[in-house]
């Protein structure tokens, strides 16, 4: 082995990784996000070492864990107080349980970073003369990257990279006094902190390596980040990102008018549903008969009946059985519930909420940008509450964003259905959501012979069980005085019948609501997906075609094409303003620590440094590779430059 690399030797060097100021567009309001600059450029210090068998490169951050009290300031809004570090900083004594706790954090948080990346390089063969006594033939060298956090128990001036106060088991985290944050860890998380704070610690560990946050970025910042990830694919990924941004911007401009149009037609839909509802009532009635005959349901019904005197108690089971067969508690309930749930106001509320949910789902969520998951957020809102009620004017791009109103109206006419004119019921364009919704009852006739899943006997049985258990529990929890035992047969029958009727009513109502959701949701999702496809087609044509050839192509949908063009201009204008402000002096490179004008679209990755997910990229280890390459004591003879490859080994 003489003259070969020294795989078992350990070299340790102190290094400083560059850290950067960062600009986050997280000051939201008025349909846009203003920028604020955070952090510092003082650098992140830690040790790097190389050693072990097989060899690994280990990054070690020293965290000083200390004892310092937190005291109460003035009470907060919920009667708690605010946390303030107070009093002397002291050493956590040896043997104190906090040391084991802190050690565990040091063991687990960096572990999220392990087995993610490898430093890959090559060792050349020795020269001709050296090869006379050196059998090493050189070859590839792969150094898995490992990460550690080492506790420092001594106070300054013993060096450390980070200070954290640790609280013992006797102190429960939570409330206004003891919230868990980056500088305060608690052995006893208590019942209020059951979330994955290990992931938070792992995110914080990334900052200790010099990494910045990756959420609430401007368009130029995210383009720069894509370039940092991989220059070769940055343009393609950037184009994908911009296309998706424009797609969502167009949807934002359409959301409120689409929702308004569908909301205005809920009575029309309700009339169509009511006209075709007879098979639904038939199916529901049959399933109620089945469910009320279920033995467990009967047991619960008997238990839910007000108590009877001992002499009458044996009658309860028979009364339950009779009431369960009553027309008033089955067929009549089914008919009245179906009629009630299909009324305009009732059904309208459901339609408005579900349509808003469908539009929201299309506007949000992560998008795959060439293998990088990303969230693209259109700032502002449509002025619609989560319940589907339009309560305030839309803001930002949701208010149209300067897109031509005529093109928005034309698109809404096509997607939702034109405004009703003349004939009643109005004729809606084929494929419009209003036409599709109004047509749903055409498929219900078969329910006379086979109930749909949401209205099946099993579903009704489950609902009856839930209704009875919940009512039984509500009675227990209400602590109302127990009723006087019933002493007369007629009163007992009335009580049993009332119990059965209420349970049938509740379960039938629930089943119809579940059924309506199962009918409406797919139509709304399909309509929204179709709209997004249409927008996407125009986005691809306009943004993916060279300018000098664009005139040769014709839009599939001129109105949507116009909206796409308008939003592309808006995006480019805002991105240009941000780029002009954030470009480093004398260059076109983006300085992430420079503020910029407010943006209407912001970007976040799905990554450990944004959403705390266990997702990492090679560029996040690039500074470590640079530091490694710059340290001659970490590299062996004849080794070249190392680069980052993802993987465990």
């Amino acid at each position, binding site marked *: 082995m003489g003259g070969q690399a020294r795989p078992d030797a350990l070299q340790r060097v102190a290094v400083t990784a560059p850290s950067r100021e960062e600009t986050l567009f997280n000051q939201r309001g008025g349909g846009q996000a203003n920028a604020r600059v955070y952090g510092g450029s003082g650098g992140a210090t830690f040790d790097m070492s190389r050693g072990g068998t097989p060899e690994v490169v280990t990054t070690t951050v020293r965290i000083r864990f200390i004892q310092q009290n937190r005291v109460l300031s003035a009470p907060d809004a919920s*009667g708690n107080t*605010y946390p303030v570090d107070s009093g002397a900083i002291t050493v956590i004594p040896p043997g104190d349980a906090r040391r084991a706790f802190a050690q565990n954090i040091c063991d687990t948080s960096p572990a999220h970073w392990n087995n993610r990346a490898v430093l890959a390089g090559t060792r050349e063969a020795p020269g001709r003369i050296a090869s006379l006594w050196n059998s090493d033939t050189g070859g590839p060298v792969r150094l898995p990257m490992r990460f550690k956090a080492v506790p420092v128990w001594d106070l300054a001036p013993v060096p450390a990279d980070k200070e954290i106060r640790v609280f013992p088991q006797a102190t429960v985290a939570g409330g206004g006094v003891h919230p868990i944050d980056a500088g305060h860890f608690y052995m006893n998380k*208590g*019942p209020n902190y059951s979330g994955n704070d290990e992931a938070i610690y792992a995110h914080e560990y990334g900052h200790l390596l010099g990494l910045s946050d990756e959420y609430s970025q401007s368009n130029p910042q995210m383009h720069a980040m894509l370039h940092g990830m991989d220059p070769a694919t940055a343009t393609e990924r950037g184009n994908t990102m911009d296309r998706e941004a424009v797609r969502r911007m167009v949807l934002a401009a359409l*959301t409120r008018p689409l929702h308004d149009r569908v909301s205005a037609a809920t009575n029309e839909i309700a009339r169509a549903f009511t006209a075709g509802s007879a098979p639904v009532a038939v199916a529901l009635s049959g399933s109620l008969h089945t469910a009320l005959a279920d033995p467990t349901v009967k047991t619960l019904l008997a238990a839910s009946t007000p108590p009877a005197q001992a002499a009458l108690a044996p009658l309860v089971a028979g009364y339950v059985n009779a009431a369960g067969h009553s027309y008033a508690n089955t067929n009549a309930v089914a008919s009245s519930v179906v009629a009630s749930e299909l009324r305009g106001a009732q059904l309208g509320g459901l339609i408005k909420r579900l349509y808003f949910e469908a539009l929201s789902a299309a506007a949000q969520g992560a998008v795959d940008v060439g293998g990088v998951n990303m969230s693209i957020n259109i700032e502002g809102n449509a002025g619609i509450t989560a319940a589907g009620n339009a309560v*305030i004017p839309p803001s930002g791009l949701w208010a149209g964003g300067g897109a031509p109103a005529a093109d928005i109206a034309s698109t809404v006419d096509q997607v939702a259905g034109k405004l009703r004119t003349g004939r009643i019921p109005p004729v809606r364009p084929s494929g419009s959501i209003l036409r599709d919704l109004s047509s749903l009852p055409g498929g219900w006739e078969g329910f006379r012979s086979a109930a749909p899943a949401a209205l099946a006997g099993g579903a009704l049985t489950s609902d009856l069980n839930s209704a009875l258990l919940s009512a039984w529990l509500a009675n227990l929890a209400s602590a109302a005085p127990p009723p006087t035992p019933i002493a007369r047969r007629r009163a007992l029958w009335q009580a049993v019948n009332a119990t059965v009727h209420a349970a049938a009513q509740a379960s039938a109502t629930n089943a119809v609501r579940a059924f309506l*959701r199962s009918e409406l949701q797919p139509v709304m999702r399909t309509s929204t997906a179709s709209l997004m496809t249409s927008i996407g087609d125009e986005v691809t044509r306009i943004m993916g075609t060279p300018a000098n050839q664009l005139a040769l192509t014709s839009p599939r949908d001129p109105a949507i094409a116009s909206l796409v063009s308008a939003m592309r201009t808006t995006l480019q204008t805002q991105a240009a303003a941000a780029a002009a402000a954030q470009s480093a002096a004398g260059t076109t490179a983006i300085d992430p620590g420079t503020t910029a004008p407010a943006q209407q679209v912001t970007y976040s990755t799905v990554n450990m440094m944004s959403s705390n997910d266990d997702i990492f990229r090679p560029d996040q280890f690039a500074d470590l590779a640079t530091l490694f390459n710059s340290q001659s004591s970490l590299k062996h003879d004849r080794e070249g430059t190392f680069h980052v490859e993802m993987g465990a080994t």
Partner: protein
Amino acid sequence: MTAGFDLTGAVLSVTWRSVGTHQVLAVFADRAAWYWAMASLGERSDLIGSFRADVSADEWPAIEELAGQVKGLGSDRVGDELGLALTAGPSAAWVAFGSDRAGAITSTVVPLVERALTGPVAAARFGTRVVTAPTGQQVAGFTFASIGRQPVLLRIDADTFALVSAGGDWEALPAPRMGLVDAAGGLLDGLYQTARINPGDLGACTIVLSDTAAGPPRRGALHGSLTLAGPWPAASSPVEAFEVSSRAVGLDPP
């Protein structure tokens, strides 16, 4: 993209928001102080809703003075620091917890919060029960008792029902198909439609526990959304997400 509640009409607003905490106090020109609790840690983790108190003539000058200071307070927040968010009309500010400024602000507004809590308008107290049903099944029950003078309107997120063990482990429960039911057996819902729980009433939702459920739970928790009562038309009421949890208690059937 969902419309939140707009505080720009308030003379002064103070927002407490961090992990597990979301509370807002807003004082309006009619000298009404509205307090909204969407999520709280500690003793009030079971309380959500809209509360109101009147601002006395003695208290009003301090509110106006504080509102006048908001524009000059700045909004420099460092990292994940905890603090108070304030607004006064279009002006916004942020003040770190523990600072003298935060102490002065809270000493001004907390008496209003405490008084508002005694005047629930549309509010609910959440409860968790673990009981043996008449069928012999072990059942987890989640209840909302309406404690205000107006109905409380809420929706519950079916995928967030959970029990917490004494050791702090969360057991996510299967999503229920049926929402809240009142003591008379009426469907209040909350899953498919917004549940409306009238003052004094209680809605319960039950989930049958599997045989493998580990140990007696210590707490129950769930998320949802709440319609906020306030100085706006009922039809325009904003809807905000809420989180509740409470100690799990047993109940002895009679």
